[in-house]
């Protein structure tokens, strides 16, 4: 007699298994996308070839990838550090804007040489990002208010504030560009083609964060606090203090991403300049599964998708299609992560009783 429960759930899964399942999930998402594109009259192989040529297949493509990666590294790291202590920072988008605004305030109104101005702007960006997450942080630490909603709501406020500044007091009087401030007097110098120093610095920051998380007492305490707050309290780890610092760090990282994008790529404060980098940071963090180092390949994958999106736009596909594809991929990955826990069990034959 066999009513077969043919699959069983493992409590934990080796990383390699997850990786295989995820590759499958991404392939599935791309297949679905290809099918839809084919139905809409596009030729998926041609599009794929075009995408490959204009991303990894050319110098310009590579530069574009690196440029997209820079903010994603930092927003991805921002969400990841928060994840380490068991929290979700869905507000990287808002902190990104706050960082850009803070940096622009310095850049536009403080006359100083670039060597002084750029570090000042970076500091302002970090502080502004921290300030933007301060209220959700305190509400979480002292009143237990769910940080997902509070960080998220502030995204809309930040985007409105940017809109106000770029259409109001800071609007560009010179060229008359819409929803935009004047051009900044300084910019982050380029290091390779159009890629600015924000890219290597972003990589460095991610590497340092990974080291801090793995090899310091503080990193250990964060890990325990995120995995089980009760156990952390039991060991005398001040969980609340750690939550506050980690969330502020997260906001600061997203703010710095805003400053890099402002001073390295866009060169002015613009409405919509965050370009979903904050939200995509969540996707990057999810792909990295809480590991700071894995933020790098995850950001690369995300940058590739974004870049592909730009290419597709030249083929009369809207940018929103890319958002939908990202969503589909995220959905497939979420399911794959869960299914990776299941293992088929060979049916045990009924032995003869001894």
């Amino acid at each position: 007699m066999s009513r077969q429960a043919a699959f069983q759930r493992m409590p934990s899964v080796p990383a390699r298994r997850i990786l295989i399942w995820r590759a499958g999930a991404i392939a599935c998402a791309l297949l679905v996308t290809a099918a839809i594109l084919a139905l809409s009259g596009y030729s998926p192989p041609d599009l794929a070839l075009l995408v490959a040529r204009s991303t990894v297949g050319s110098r310009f493509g590579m530069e574009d990838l690196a440029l997209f990666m820079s903010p994603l590294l930092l927003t991805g790291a921002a969400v990841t550090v928060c994840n380490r202590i068991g929290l979700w920072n869905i507000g990287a988008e808002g902190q990104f804007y706050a960082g850009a605004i803070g940096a622009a305030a310095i850049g536009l109104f403080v006359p100083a040489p670039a060597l002084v101005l750029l570090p000042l702007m970076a500091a302002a960006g970090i502080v502004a990002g921290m300030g933007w997450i301060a209220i959700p942080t305190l509400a979480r630490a002292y009143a237990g208010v769910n940080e997902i909603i509070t960080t998220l709501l502030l995204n809309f406020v930040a985007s409105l504030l940017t809109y106000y500044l770029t259409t109001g007091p800071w609007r560009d009087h010179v060229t008359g560009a819409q929803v935009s401030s004047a051009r900044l007097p300084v910019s982050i110098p380029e290091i390779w083609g159009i890629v600015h120093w924000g890219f290597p610095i972003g990589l460095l920051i991610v590497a340092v964060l990974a080291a801090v998380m793995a090899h310091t007492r503080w990193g250990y305490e964060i890990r325990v606090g995120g995995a089980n707050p009760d156990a952390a309290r039991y060991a005398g780890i001040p969980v609340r203090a750690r939550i506050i610092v980690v969330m502020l760090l997260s906001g600061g990282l997203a703010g710095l991403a805003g400053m890099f994008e402002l001073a390295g790529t866009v060169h002015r404060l613009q409405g919509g300049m965050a370009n979903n980098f904050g939200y995509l940071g969540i996707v990057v963090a999810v792909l990295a599964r809480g590991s700071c180092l894995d933020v790098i390949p995850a950001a690369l994958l995300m940058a590739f998708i974004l870049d592909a999106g730009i290419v597709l736009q030249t083929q009369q596909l809207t940018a929103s299609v890319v958002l939908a594809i990202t969503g589909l991929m995220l959905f497939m990955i979420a399911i794959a992560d869960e299914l990776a826990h299941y293992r088929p069990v060979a049916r045990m034959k009924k032995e003869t009783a001894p």
Partner: protein
Amino acid sequence: MADAPDRPPVAPGTPPILQLRGIGKFFPGVIANKDVDLEVWPGEIHALLGENGAGKSTLMNVVTGIYQPEEGEIILDGYGRSFASPQEAIRAGIGMVHQHFKLVQAFSVAENIHLGWDEAPRRISARVMEERTRAISERFGFPVRPDARVADLSAGEQQRVEILRVLSRRARLLIMDEPTAVLTPEETRELFRALRAFRAQGNAVIIISHKLDEVMEISDRVSILRHGRRIATFDTGDCTPSMLATTMVGREIVRRNMRARPPGAQPVSATPVMGLRNVTMLDARGVESLRDVSLDLYGGEILGIAGVAGNGQRELTQVLTGLAAPATGQVLLDGAVMARPDPAAFARAGVGHVPEDRLRSALAPSLSITDNMALREYAIPPVGRRGLYDSRAADMLARDIARVATVDIPDFAMPVRNLSGGNQQRLVARREIRIAHRVLIAAYPARGLDIGAIATMLGYLTELRDQGVAVVFISEDLEDLLNVSDRIGVMFHGRLMAVVDAADTDMETIGLLMGGRDGAPMSARGEQ
């Protein structure tokens, strides 16, 4: 034993209420049940005996439709049945009272009684539910308060709600998983009375237990499971406790008096190592959860704490380990007042803590074994130096602990939740013993362990005692307490009822104190 009178006669040709044939159920890497045959007749209380992990609970979850068996068949009143869901089992007259009550804490008693009950009216208000509950409660003779929130009830009251829910569904087979673990002796007697009355109406009961005395007292027949298989079934009248224990474990159990010191053991210290002075604590609702507790712990001595769970033991543990500050009163360590609750400072001062619920508070289940073993020493060399965390040193530490605990670990990087409960408990105990130079607070360290592992755990405690450490051993198992403790304190409603010398007391006395009756021989109220 002497229950034959109210056991109704069974007409010849009546099939068993429940018959299991060749049941098999498998979990990842575990054979939970294999080739289990079992018959339960009308008018019988059938005990299911076995060590932890012997497959008792799994088997019953198969019978009640929560798990699907991989092999075998379930025959009810002579007809083969299979239950795809608990609902089908309930309709067939099988009701189960789980060890961890399946009640909704935020709901009232009446709401819990009506949960998933398809005979209740579709439109039903709180008032109607309470009236119906009152009626059911009177019909079956189980007094409950229909409008009380379940979260506010004692364990015994919650169990009554569970039983009432099962009876209201017209169950003919009642399955009870470890029903007495959370009850006072008095509540246990009431429960047994009710079970006998239920049996007298021609119904059957399966009672899962590993308390031999209770099995002897209440059951008509007893089946023993070991490693997922049924080893034997006996008429209880033909059994002795020691014979049951031997069959259950598969070897002879030697019980020794663990109170006696081996030569070379440290003597009891002259001055207390740790003490509480008039400590009172309030819970979230402002009710006193500890009331005016004063207590002294001496090095080289084991102080047992008896009591039904939820009478202040948790709070006592918290003040003794620096997890919470008393509302009033003082905590003394080596004569100095510990002004601030700081578990890390207590740990540095040599206070180890084996908490009640290891997975919830002593371990981070998703982190590696190495990380978990470093939890108490991550800030001190060799693991922690100048703010750094040396993962290699942590790994060495973890290997040390695992070796002393005699736990075989293939991979220290795997999450600690992959280990069995018994191994987790051993690792936590050894981790805490490492830092417990002065005091060890062990809350229910033997809970969930089988007989062999319990002996090991109690051995840890006496070893520590012999090294001159003050040990607090909180348990609800009076036998274990009497075996190792030098003194025994009894908690009731947050009060330390009495501290008695273990050598001069017996289970009866402690049982009475646990129920809040001051039956103690005049006042061995500590020895201050």
